[in-house]
């Protein structure tokens, strides 16, 4: 096994890097959600239903965040439409 490691090295991305990238995204998302108003999940659901009137998308294709930008808050809606 160790011999094979030496010759066939570095084909797949290192799992530690994958872990780091996944964590950065989820932690940033959850930190935003922590300070988010209570109506956010309901808002997300309604936006999802409006979009679905026109295009069928999966739930995870809609990302919604509220970012505090000093004197105002920015509602960020990210929708991935299927091709």
């Amino acid at each position: 096994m160790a011999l094979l490691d030496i010759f066939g090295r570095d084909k797949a991305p290192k799992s530690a890097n994958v872990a780091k990238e996944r964590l950065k995204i989820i932690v940033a998302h959850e930190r935003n959600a922590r300070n988010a108003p209570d109506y956010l999940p309901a808002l997300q659901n309604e936006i999802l239903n409006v979009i679905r009137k026109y295009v069928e998308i999966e739930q995870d294709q809609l990302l919604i965040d509220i970012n505090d930008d000093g004197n105002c808050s920015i509602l960020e809606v990210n929708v991935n439409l299927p091709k």
Partner: protein
Amino acid sequence: MASIIVVTSGKGGVGKTTTSAAVSMGLAQAGYRTVVIDFDIGLRNLDIIMNCERRVVYDFVNVIQGDANLNQALIKDKRCDQLFILPASQTRDKEALTKEGVKAVLDELTQTFDYIICDSPAGIEHGAQMALHYADEALVVTNPEVSSVRDSDRILGILQSKSHRAENGLPPVKERLLITRFDPSRVAKGEMLSIQDIEEILAVPLLGIIPESQAVLNASNNGTPVILDIKSDAGQAYQDTVARLLGEERPHRFLEAQKKGLFQRVFGG
């Protein structure tokens, strides 16, 4: 006036009780009068890690409910006369802990102790929130693994919003990161998050790194806090951690993978 330190993590099984036992023993050995409280009501384990499970008569909930006074419930450690253990109740549920009850016990302890270590249960529910509520400092115990890091971030959020200090606009709880079960050889292979990765994600100052070590299981088998195993890597790492907690500057150790011999490299293992 005691310093109240909560040992917390969100995730279970990362080393909170091991750390509570080691750190409290380390502080007591340094001459500070220290009490370590088990907040894991219903699942007490600090007593067995500290080898005093057969000496428990009264517990934390008995004291809160007035069935016993503190002196009856505190167990004096047989190895260090500066260290006392306040065991959790094994029979009642976590709701028996009230903010007022916890505060009354901490207020009494703070009169005569230098350090109060609160060993938190896993999770983010009532028991964990009670353990961290009155903390001045928090040791966030994290394994280099995705679920543990994520849960640590969650508990940091609770420290920043639901602790007594946060709710009353006092200076925030001093947060410090303790990375446990660290394996530098796996980091070198790209199989484990590095210290820098975890620091970058959690953005909390690093207090210590405890290497993955066989000494930890041996210590718990024997009911000896691993910090007393001074020959072991984990024991030494906890000694460094306690020294840093007391303000001493010490470089981090056990960051390099042990070199493997040619035989091991060719045949693995």
